[in-house]
């Protein structure tokens, strides 16, 4: 089968999955302006931006020859639960009758449906191989995420601007070629060395700024839609951690309940302090992670929300209260088709200034300190 999937975060993971199932994989292109234009053109106007971007991605994948599109569903009362069906209807209305859309809903919603889908994409690969390879993939995701977390801690302190991103690109290319578990562990160790060999400047613990990124899964994970916010922050000298990594998402959603790490339950519990009922999307997680980041000593939170995303709108309305009670600055950034980058950059920069001020004291001097670093960072682009 010529299989493709929506682009979200490290897409090589999904590619691996279908390679392991011996499909012919059509790699969807990383979302660009064109993806957005296509998606916006063929989606309902008031749909949220992830639906539109995914729509655009499907159309581009179909152009490249994809016949089967595989995606995960959503559950709870937000619109995400209808994404799959909406996409399916749009594709039909565009005359793509031969395209099959396979939607994986959470297995606990219906184990029957889940296994029917698994059978479909298993592609006749014997079960013992499937299980073995899925375990490899599980470790693959884990290792890749570990490396990404390191990247986010090294980038702010790199001496040669851009080097960490270059290494990260190399790492992804190398991971893309991995076939076996043994290879995985070997490549992982080598990549780790690669990261450790990046020259960094020493920064005092008290001068380090840490920011947690929370919000709806697509805009948090997909850098092409969030302006590469992790890199922007990293380049401003800020350590970043996202609320969501694929490995944790798999643990939280696909691994059977009893085997799940406790962390997820704790986050949910923290979130339920503010949102008591199920409203869908990642609202409860978002709040839970805000509190969690604060407890772990982070300095600030960037909250990403697709414009018109209902659950995140609820979160946003709670943010002034949470920010005050938990005592952590939070910057909410709505993301839509026409968010201007200049405007976004201004906010992010000003927010980081604010965090630095907060951390370092209360005199006017502080501003001067900030500038100095900043000039160094920004002047790199000038001769």
């Amino acid at each position: 089968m010529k299989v493709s999937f929506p682009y979200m975060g490290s897409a090589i993971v999904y590619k691996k999955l279908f390679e392991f199932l011996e499909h012919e994989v059509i790699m969807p292109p990383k979302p660009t302006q064109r993806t957005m234009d296509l998606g916006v053109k063929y989606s309902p106007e008031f749909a949220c931006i992830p639906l539109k971007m995914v729509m655009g991605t499907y159309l581009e994948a179909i152009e490249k020859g994809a016949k089967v599109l595989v995606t995960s569903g959503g559950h709870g009362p937000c619109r995400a639960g209808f994404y799959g069906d909406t996409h399916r209807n749009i594709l039909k209305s565009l005359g793509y009758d031969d395209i099959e859309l396979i939607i994986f809903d959470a297995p606990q919603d219906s184990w029957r449906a889940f296994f029917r889908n698994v059978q479909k994409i298993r592609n006749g690969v014997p079960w013992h191989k499937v299980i073995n390879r899925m375990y490899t993939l599980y470790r693959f995701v884990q290792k890749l995420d570990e490396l990404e977390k390191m990247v986010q801690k090294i980038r702010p302190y790199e001496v040669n601007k851009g080097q960490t991103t270059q290494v990260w690109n190399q790492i992804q290319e190398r991971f893309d070629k991995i076939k076996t578990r043994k290879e995985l562990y070997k490549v992982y160790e080598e990549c780790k060395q690669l990261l450790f060999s990046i020259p960094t400047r020493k920064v005092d613990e008290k001068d380090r700024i840490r920011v947690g990124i929370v919000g709806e899964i697509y805009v948090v994970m997909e850098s092409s839609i969030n302006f590469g916010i992790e890199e922007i922050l990293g380049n401003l000298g800020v350590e970043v951690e996202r609320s969501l990594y694929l490995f944790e998402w798999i643990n939280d959603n696909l691994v059977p309940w009893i085997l799940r790490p406790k962390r997820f339950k704790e986050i949910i519990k923290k979130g339920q302090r503010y949102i008591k009922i199920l409203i869908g999307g990642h609202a409860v997680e978002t709040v839970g992670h805000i509190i969690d980041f604060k407890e772990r000593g982070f300095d600030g939170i960037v909250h990403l929300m697709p414009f018109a995303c209902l659950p995140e709108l609820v979160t946003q309305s709670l943010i002034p209260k949470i920010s005050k009670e938990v005592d952590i600055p939070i910057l909410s950034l709505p993301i839509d088709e026409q968010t201007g980058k200049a405007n976004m950059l201004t906010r992010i920069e000003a927010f980081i200034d604010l965090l630095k001020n907060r951390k370092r004291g209360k005199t006017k001097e502080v501003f001067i300190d900030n500038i100095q670093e900043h000039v160094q960072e920004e002047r790199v682009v000038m001769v």
Partner: protein
Amino acid sequence: MKEIYIGVDVGSVSTNVVAIDRNVNVLFKTYIRTNGQPIDSVKEGVKQLREALGDVEVLGVGTTGSGRQLAGAILGADVVKNEITAHAIATIHFVPDVRTIFEIGGQDSKIIIIKDQMVVDFAMNTVCAAGTGSFLDHQAERLKIPIEQFGDLALSATRPVRIAGRCTVFAESDMIAKQQFGFSKAEIIRGLCDALVRNYLNNVGRGKNLEPPFVFQGGVAANKGIRAAFERELQSKIIVPEHFNVMGAIGSAILAKNYIEKTNAKTNFRGFDAADIDFSTASFECKGCSNRCEVVKVSMEGKVIAMWGDRCGKWTNSL
């Protein structure tokens, strides 16, 4: 020879250029329409500065605004800083105990919350124009009243009238209705000022703790009608600083001054000849990897002097 620091604020609507001395006295200020030509407007501003001040020694240059990187590259700025920090710095200088800054320009507006002379919170409008100067411009045009008379007319109104100001489109139809009810133009204008302020406070200031002293700046602060509407809404005095419409530029000049004084660095300023130099910008999509970055390139007389937008540093570092 006079020693000065230059501050430049390049926004989408206007480009402001100021010169301050060591004691932050404003020696010169100008306000130029950007008209989509930021390079020309920066050059024009600097040219005017030189003509007005004659022989000066430039000790440092700061830029801010959405065109700050471009302006920084053209002039050889020492400090390139976002406009929220720049505005805050200037306001704190003139009104040291300020707690809340209202900044309303033609296209955008902000609220900055200050505590102990530090920015502790801020917000900017994103998409909605109903809380900015263009809302007023547009309605003034509809009513055929020159925007300069807008404020005085609003103050002359005797009765309040409520205009639905949630959005420019609704405001317009509501205005027409109220005109038909027999409200005077002055009253309607006062209603519009109230609507703008309400809107701005509800949208941009949502969830913020607004504490006095309040400082109101940006182009719209010239409008007495809006000032009065703020005072009615907040039941408090509103301070409009003398240089209300160029505060961002002043802030960036102060930042440059602080930086130079602290580091004893020599300025990167290219000199006033920059106004005669031929600059051009271009952008291209890099196909070096799947990121496909949109890279901006600024050239000076054909030679590339600055690049940005690449995520990996490939272009930035190539200089």
